[in-house]
């Protein structure tokens, strides 16, 4: 408790005025000619707080909160989930601390939860039905047994990330659940291809958008309101890697992850992957269900300065998520034994509708970079795991930064591309590592 209080105090200070915070907290003054000069006294103070000196202090930008202070954890328990941080309990929203996402295939108990409403009480796979209707030649209602019998059953490792993952770093803050890093996962999903089912129903040329409906109910209890109903352009819907899934990691889907049937539309905001799936309607207009309109899952059509009030009509719907990486080992805040010459670092990277082509690491605040060994994806839309050995020349405090580049050449930024609702934060993940004296 006292630890989190202290962290909050520091975060508040840095949010108000980073350079002043540097001075107040650490006595650190940025030299005009350099981007991160630490005066002797400030350097010592920061070192005391971190329990180590900072070998690369001359490269450390002014106003940068040491990553050792930038994360905090709280443990709660959800049945069938392990180690998740609960952001909200009504509706339930919980994310996974980065170091618990170390597996290439995310265990079911470590996959994040993002609920918009109240999950249905009946999740019986034997009586579940899915309806396909709207702009199709042959509207259909199918049981899960029908899906398994009539369509090819496939398994893919598919990464899902909440559109608001990383929102907690926005300044000014953006409204909504304050996700830090862990609203992302890469489970092995088993189901049938959405495209096969749509083709069986016969997609009319008039169909331009999907509309997804789940069995969860609105928080207010109003039966006429849907908590969320989103969709995707028909071109995205026809991708062979979208699944109507009935298994998660070879077992039942976790109740909070959408049992017994859900969509998995990887690479796009997680909200496109309707949970407790009951109906897919094809529409001849852009879908306008709850959380499709206004500013939900939308960003400005142009770049805006932090804090700008952007008119609703100047927003556009988010499509693919941007390139991003996560360091899952070591855990931020680790102290290595004296004399450790290097640290083995590993994690994952993903890139919306693209592949990741490169992951690089820095331990000197971004001055020099080392290429990581990057795995090919298990299949398209799986995240790609990577590992590297990063040199640490002597005792002190380091930050390991990870930076991924996608197959189109897009690279993770250092600073947030601020937007009013706090989406798409794909800034570099920073992990604190100390080598003991």
């Amino acid at each position, binding site marked *: 408790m006292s630890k989190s209080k202290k962290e909050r105090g520091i975060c508040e200070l840095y949010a108000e005025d980073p350079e002043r915070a540097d001075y107040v907290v650490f006595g650190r003054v940025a030299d005009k000619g350099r981007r991160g000069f630490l005066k002797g006294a400030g350097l010592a103070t920061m070192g005391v707080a971190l329990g180590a000196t900072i070998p690369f202090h001359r490269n450390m930008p002014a106003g940068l909160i040491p990553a050792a202070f930038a994360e905090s954890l709280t443990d709660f328990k959800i049945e069938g989930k392990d180690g998740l941080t609960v952001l909200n*309990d009504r509706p339930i929203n919980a994310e996974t601390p980065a170091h618990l996402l170390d597996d290439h295939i995310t265990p079911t108990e470590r996959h994040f939860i993002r609920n918009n409403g109240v999950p249905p009480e009946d999740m019986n796979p034997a009586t579940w039905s899915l*309806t396909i*209707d709207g702009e199709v030649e*042959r509207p259909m209602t199918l049981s899960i047994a029908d899906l398994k019998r009539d369509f090819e059953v496939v398994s893919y490792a598919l990464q899902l990330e909440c559109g608001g993952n990383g929102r*907690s770093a926005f300044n000014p803050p953006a409204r909504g659940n*304050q996700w*830090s890093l862990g609203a992302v996962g890469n489970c092995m999903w088993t189901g049938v291809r959405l495209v096969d089912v749509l083709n*069986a129903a016969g997609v009319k040329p008039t169909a331009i958008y999907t509309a997804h409906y789940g069995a969860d*109910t609105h928080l207010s209890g109003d039966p006429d309101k849907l908590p969320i109903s989103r969709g995707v352009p028909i071109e995205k819907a026809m991708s062979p890697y979208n699944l109507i899934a009935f298994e998660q990691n070879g077992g039942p889907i976790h109740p909070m992850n959408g049992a017994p049937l859900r969509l998995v539309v990887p690479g796009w905001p997680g909200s496109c992957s309707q949970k407790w799936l009951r109906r897919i309607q094809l529409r001849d207009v852009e879908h306008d269900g709850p959380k499709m309109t206004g500013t939900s899952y939308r960003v400005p059509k142009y770049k805006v300065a932090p804090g700008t009030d952007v008119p609703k009509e100047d927003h556009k719907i988010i499509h693919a998520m941007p390139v991003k990486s996560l360091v899952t080992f070591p855990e931020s805040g680790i102290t290595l034994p004296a004399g450790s010459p290097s640290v083995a670092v590993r994690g994952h990277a993903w890139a919306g509708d693209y592949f990741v082509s490169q992951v690089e690491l820095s331990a000197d605040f971004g001055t020099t970079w080392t290429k990581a060994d990057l795995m090919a994806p298990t299949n398209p839309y799986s995240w790609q795991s990577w590992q590297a050995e990063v040199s640490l020349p002597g005792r002190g405090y380091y930050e390991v930064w990870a930076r991924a580049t996608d197959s189109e050449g897009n690279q993770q930024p250092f600073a947030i591309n601020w937007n009013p609702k706090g989406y798409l934060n794909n800034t570099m993940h920073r992990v604190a590592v100390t080598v003991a004296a």
Partner: protein
Amino acid sequence: MRISSSVARVSRPPLRRPFLSLLVAAGLCLLTLPAWADDDFFGEDWPRTEGYEEVGYFCGACHSLAIVKQQGLSRPHWDDLFDWMIEEQGMAELEPEERELYLDYLARHFNEDHRPL
């Protein structure tokens, strides 16, 4: 696979208002119990200034107060959020004096200088 003759039949989940009411009632009871013990219905991080009970019960009736405490919004943005909850989420319209009281409380404690986590 079978072709549905009545597509609209399954387009909406069954009504479960009674169930939800029970759930909400049960939830409130559970939340209230510890309050008798340590007077902490709202959590110790819900500041005890004018309006805290009114705002806390009003917001907490539909969603967790945890989501409120995470926010850092200016008064106009809290005002916008009220509009969004009324227009999109079925929140009841507020009397002007209620709205002022709630906005005063939220903007005082959960303004842009309030950092989440």
